[in-house]
C-alpha cells in the first residue's frame, strides 16, 4: 500500500477511537509518522495490535530522542511498528517535558520493549512506569547523568592521557 493511503487509513481509525490524542499525522520520506499524546500511547499501540484491520503485531524499534530547543517537549520516545503479513510500517512519536520524564511501559504488549526501555532510561533518563526491572543496562549501575542527552560530553572528562591541544579541541 502506498504511504499516503496507509497514512489516511490508519489516521481515520485512530482519530475515530482516540480523538485528540493524535496530535499530528504526516508522511516523512516513506513512513507514515504519528505524533501521539504521551498518556495514551500504550492504548494506541494496543489498539493497533488488536484491531483486525490494523494488526501491527511487531515492534521493530523503540528509542529516545532529545531536542533541547523544544521547550516543554524536550524528550521524546519513538516507536516503529510493523505489520508483517501486509508489510505496513509506521512510526509513532511522543514528546514530553524534561522534568516530567515518565512514560507508561509497553512491556505488557510487547516483550521486546523490555530491554529497549531500559536502554532508553539509561541513555535519556526516561522512566517507564510499570516496567518490571527499571535499571540501567549499558552503563555502570552507579553512573550519574544520562549520556545521550545533548549536554553530556562525549569524552570522559577525567582522562589524563589525551592532550586536547594536540587533538584540536
Amino acid at each position, binding site marked *: 500500500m502506498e504511504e499516503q493511503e496507509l497514512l489516511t487509513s490508519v489516521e481515520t481509525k485512530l482519530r475515530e477511537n482516540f480523538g485528540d490524542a493524535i496530535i499530528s499525522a504526516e508522511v516523512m520520506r516513506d513512513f507514515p509518522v504519528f505524533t501521539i499524546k504521551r498518556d495514551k500511547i500504550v492504548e494506541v499501540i494496543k489498539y493497533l495490535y488488536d484491531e483486525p484491520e490494523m494488526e501491527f503485531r511487531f515492534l521493530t524499534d523503540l528509542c529516545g530522542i532529545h531536542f533541547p530547543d523544544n521547550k516543554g517537549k524536550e524528550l521524546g520516545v519513538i516507536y516503529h511498528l510493523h505489520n508483517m503479513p501486509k508489510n505496513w510500517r509506521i512510526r509513532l512519536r511522543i514528546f514530553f517535558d524534561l522534568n516530567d520524564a515518565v512514560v507508561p511501559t509497553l512491556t505488557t504488549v510487547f516483550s521486546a520493549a523490555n530491554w529497549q526501555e531500559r536502554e532508553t532510561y539509561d541513555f535519556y533518563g526516561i522512566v517507564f512506569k510499570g516496567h518490571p526491572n527499571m535499571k540501567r543496562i549499558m*552503563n*555502570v549501575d552507579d553512573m550519574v547523568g544520562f*549520556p545521550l542527552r545533548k549536554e553530556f560530553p*562525549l*569524552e*570522559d572528562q577525567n*582522562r589524563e*592521557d589525551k592532550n586536547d591541544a594536540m587533538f584540536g579541541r
Partner: protein
Amino acid sequence: MAEVVEKSNIELVSSPPGIEGPGFFATSLDKVIGIARANSIWPLPFATSCCGIEFMATMAAHYDMGRFGAERLSFSPRQADLLMVMGTIAKKMGPILKQVYTQMAEPRWVLSMGACASSGGIFDTYSVLQGIDRIIPVDVYVPGCPPRPEQVLDGIVKIQELIKNESIRRRSRPEYKDMLAKYGIE
C-alpha cells in the same frame, strides 16, 4: 611456486652459551627455564570484541599460533601464563580484568592486542577505558585495528624474547613489587 631453500638462509635455533659434552649440556638455570617457558606459553584469551575474531583466525590453521608453542589455551587464570587482552575494555569490564589478572600466578605476562586495549582506540568516549595499562601492567602492545595475524604472531615472538631473557629473580625483587603497588595490586 617452489623456491629452492638454500641451507644458508635457514636459521636454526641456537643453544644458549654453555658447556657441552657427550650426553650432557650445562648452562645457567635462567636460560633453561627461559627456553622452557618461552616455548610453551599457555595463553588466556581475554577476547571482548573484533580483535577476538582475528585471534580466532590466528589460532586457526592458516596462521597457526600453535607452532610457537601456544597451542593450549587456558580459560582459567590459575593455569595461564600470558593474558592476551583482545578488544575494547569498557569501564564496566575493568574490575573484572583486574580480578582475572590478580588471579593469575607468577610468572605472568600481558599482551595488549589492538588499539582499543592499548589506548582506547577510536572510542574516546565516557564508557571506554583508555588503555588497559590504566589498571594492569602490560608487557607488549600490538597496535592495529584489528592487527593482522602476522602482527599478533610478532607480538608473541616478542613476548617469547622477553620470557627467554627474564631473570628468575625478577618477580621477587622490590622494584617489581613497587611497580605492582602503583597499580594497586598486592
